């Protein structure tokens, strides 16, 4: 199945990437090339194989609910592109 430029635009929106027309064109080509490569996996019958998400068995990790060291609010916002009163400033989200 071939990806069209419209597919690329849809995926870019899901990924929150604003792409230029040039980028859309080159990505359409490259993604199709790479997807074709992925097709090779269909040669393998994996119907009886369980998936591996991590190479070591992972378990839930529990700990006691005790307070530890944490960052100050001013440290937390220190890298923010815009902040005010120890809060992140963003464009308006809710309509007034």
């Amino acid at each position, binding site marked *: 199945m071939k*990806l069209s430029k419209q*597919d*690329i635009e849809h*995926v*870019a929106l*899901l*990924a*929150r*990437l*604003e*792409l*230029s027309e040039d*980028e859309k064109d080159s*990505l359409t080509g*490259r*993604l199709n*090339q*790479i997807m074709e*490569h*992925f097709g*090779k*996996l*269909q*040669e*393998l019958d*994996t119907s009886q*194989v*369980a*998936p*591996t*998400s*991590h*190479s*070591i068995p*992972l378990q839930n*990790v529990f*700990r006691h609910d005790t307070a530890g060291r944490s*960052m100050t609010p001013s*440290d*937390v*916002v*220190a*890298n*923010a*592109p*815009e902040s005010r009163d120890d809060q*992140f400033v*963003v*464009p*308006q*989200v809710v309509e007034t």
Partner: protein
Amino acid sequence: MELFQLTAHELHKKLKSREISALELTQSVLGRISSVDGQVRSFVTVTNEIALETARAVDKQIAGGGDVSPLAGIPIAIKDNMCTNGVRTTCSSKMLENFIPPYSATVVEKLAEAGAIMVGKTNLDEFAMGSSTENSALFVTHNPWNLDKVPGGSSGGSAAAVAADEAVLALGSDTGGSIRQPAAFCGVVGMKPTYGRVSRYGLVAFASSLDQIGPITKDVTDTAILLGAISGKDSMDSTSVDIPVPDYTAALKNDVRGMKIGIPKEFFAQGVRPEISEAVMKAVEALKALGADYKEVSMPIMEYTLPTYYILAPSEASSNLARYDGVRYGHRSKHSSDVMSMFMKTRDEGFGAEVKQRIMIGTYALSAGYYDAYYLKAQKVRTLVRQAYDEAFEEFDVLISPTAPSVAFGIGEKANDPLEMKLADVCTIPVNMAGIPAMSMTCGFYDGLPIGMQIMGKPFGEETMLQVAYTYEQNTDHHTMKPGL
């Protein structure tokens, strides 16, 4: 010999006996950086002042008596995707160009506690995505053996820094070969430990089920020392494993008698150049002469690992990199009007071409209707890869293969051929998928460039790998070669 040329274990003896001070050593390494880094360009940030200040503090401690840790006073370079409190951590991306972490990665904390001296942060392919360090959004790093060649990637800055004697030790991170392949290209030792051996807290996440931090050093002994210093369970990383950390230096025995080595033939196909296969097999013969036994083994599933990796890694990356939204840290576009355009433009401006491409692949592979065909399928193939290794390790103590299919290629040579570039990782990728440990060391030279041999081990079998590597090193002299910078 200048101080900056020595290994950590050699320098430790001199520091312990007070023949030299940590300050002298640090000044020697910083001097080396200022004389060669204009050509090599390993470092994104050189932390001169912090290094000198730490060196003085270590000297005070040594003067005060007591134990001198094997890493006390030893200059080390850190890949710029590990958080360093108060020191810029860029991931070689415009997205994080001005990011100053408010905390340090666990490995960085451990090194500080051991008295190691951070001399700087090294260049990488943006967000560790690449095999040549050419994808750095900041600048290109050069191979110290030949400045027209790439240092490999993504830990190209760390490997080049150690090869050029700009650091005694370095840390890299490895998701599909990013420690081992640059170590091979730069003629140094690089190890990806078992998944879970080393805490990733504070490592900027790329593909969480594959990422691992590990040492890049001038010889095998230093790898054992540095591995011991960074390993162990960490409450801040729930994927770190609670298995005791052995004294890895105890595994450094010059003896491979009775050792069973598997030679997986698929690792010698897939575009591996004849000069590479020859050098690796010559090394295997040398190990045989020292008492090891080897046999060819077939692992046909390896043919499928490259496409599997290029589903798994971008899928996880697309999810991990969703956090770069221009709100809490990193770049924010100045041209946005509302919150949606802020996200879209911030990410367009902040990420480079390779990162965008991988986010797109991953987003597509995980999107509604495609999950089973791609990500789930890849996870199933991953099970088969792990099974193939488990089976092989029932018979063999270690597996040996080339680290990369060729020696370092030219800067710009593969930039426009993404599939060709990805082939550079064909021998290293399966290791991350299975979570096993592997290391690269030099086993010869071609055209004046180092050739890497990869030794793969059982899960948490780092000691066996180190023993094989140490024996080979003690009986050869490749590790004594230095680039003519």
